[in-house]
């Protein structure tokens, strides 16, 4: 009998094919909003990341390069200047922790002052102090001890180890780097919140579908899978678009010489740093996966 054969074989079919996503209807506007919001968040995350990396570079540069150099400023009447300079150089060359001490000549001094006073500055006619550039060895020198020696052996010579103005700059740059990273994490949290809300709305809108699926023996993980895959894909796709646009925008920012330390012109990715924003779409997809799954499982537990 044909009916018996049909009934006998109906329960014994072959391999599984996942159709959970197809069973859950697409939720139109919610779908686009999820993708669009993920794109916007990823765009902002690219800039937060660029800000963080640029601030990090600046902090490193300021703390590494400037930390190794100091300046000694020598003020004295013109007739005593040569003797005072010799005394300072003698003190510096016999101080442990100093790799080199170089007297900045008048040409170089004129170049340093040129941005402020113009090219026609009569350096000879001005009572300018002489400057000595001091480069440290790996082991730092004792700045307090050096100040005392300079005061005793070369009165009028003042040591400036840049600490006073360097420290707040380095601190500011480091805090900016931390703020950039915190912004990336906050953006990740916002994506999680947005996806949770959208997934909860989608689950509520599909209460009837869920009831039917429970009726035919669907497990919670099967039902959740339909929502999880959809929201993960939407968030990943949106984040990929936002990241691409964000990276293009960062690449299009006007550049500048890194040595100038100019912050605005340094807001960019350098070398391997370009790999960091590529991690944003998978990160967004991972966040969406976890948020949707948690929302779905929590909500499904309330349905018999």
């Amino acid at each position, binding site marked *: 009998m044909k009916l*018996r054969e049909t009934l006998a074989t109906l329960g014994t079919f072959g391999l599984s094919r996942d159709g959970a996503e197809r069973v859950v209807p697409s939720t139109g506007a919610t779908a686009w909003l999820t993708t669009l919001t993920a794109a916007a968040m990823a765009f902002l995350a690219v800039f937060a990341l660029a800000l963080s990396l640029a601030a990090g570079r600046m902090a490193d540069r300021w703390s590494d390069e400037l930390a190794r150099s100091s300046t000694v400023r020598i003020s004295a009447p013109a007739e005593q200047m040569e003797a005072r300079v010799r005394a300072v150089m003698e003190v510096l060359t016999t101080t442990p922790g100093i790799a080199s001490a170089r007297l900045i000549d008048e040409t170089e001094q004129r170049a340093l002052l040129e941005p402020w006073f113009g090219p026609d500055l009569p350096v000879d006619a001005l009572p300018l102090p002489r400057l000595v550039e001091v480069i440290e060895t790996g082991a730092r020198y004792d700045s307090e001890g050096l100040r005392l020696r300079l005061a005793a052996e070369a009165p009028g010579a003042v040591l400036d180890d840049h600490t006073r103005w360097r420290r707040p700059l380095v601190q500011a740059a480091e805090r900016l780097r931390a703020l950039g990273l915190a912004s990336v994490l906050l953006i990740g949290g916002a994506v999680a919140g947005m996806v949770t809300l959208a997934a909860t709305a989608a689950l509520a809108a599909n209460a009837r579908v869920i009831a039917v699926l429970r009726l035919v*023996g669907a497990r919670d993980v099967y039902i959740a899978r339909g929502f999880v895959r959809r929201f993960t894909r939407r968030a990943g796709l949106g984040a990929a678009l936002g990241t691409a646009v964000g990276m293009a925008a960062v690449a299009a920012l006007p550049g500048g010489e890194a040595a100038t330390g100019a912050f605005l012109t340094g807001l960019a990715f350098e070398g391997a740093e370009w790999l960091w924003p590529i991690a944003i779409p998978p990160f967004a997809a991972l966040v969406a996966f976890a948020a949707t799954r948690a929302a779905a499982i929590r909500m499904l537990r309330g349905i018999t």
Partner: protein
Amino acid sequence: MIELEQASFSYGGGDILSELSLHLAPGTFHFLTGPSGSGKSTLLKLCFMELQPTRGQARIFGQDVRQMDRDEVARARRRIGIGHQDCQFIDHLSIAENVALPLEVSGQDTSAAEADLRELLGWVGLSGQTAQLPPELSGGERQRAALARAVIMSPDVVLADEPTGNVDWEMAQRLLALLVELNRMGKTVLVATHDLNLIRVAKAQVSARVLRIVRGRLQAAGADL
């Protein structure tokens, strides 16, 4: 397979079912009758674990329903096919897809089942409606589709709530033949119905026990059935 021991179900302060005991052994065929509102659908829902008894015990495939976790309930439901009176469907899926849904959720290949699916839909008179959406069908057609979905996994137990309520006599007999055939294959069948003629025809084909719900309690039906 399905056992209710002194099971009661209360809703809104009063007992709908009161200290009722039912034992559905493998391969048995039961009819459940009673006036509207007597609790037939509630009893089927207790058997399907959609509801839990407020007092007493329900055991499904040897497990106490109260001790079952959600996955165990889902797995047990795959062994029970149910056709509800209100025929719940997923409206954006075609009738064929809705009927094949139990295969889908249990991870089976629905494309491999296509020929048998067509055969089953043909048997319940829905060959021409396979691609239609549930809202496009009449009440009777939806009932037939619900019964087809209930039996597509060839479950151990089939529960049918008024499966012939909106169909003509000829179709009612075809649906009965489907249930009788499943029972002959060793499946347990419980049908809630008002249709006494259907019960009489069934008893001529299969050894069926007829139960009646009276004031929340189960009684064996009289000799006229």
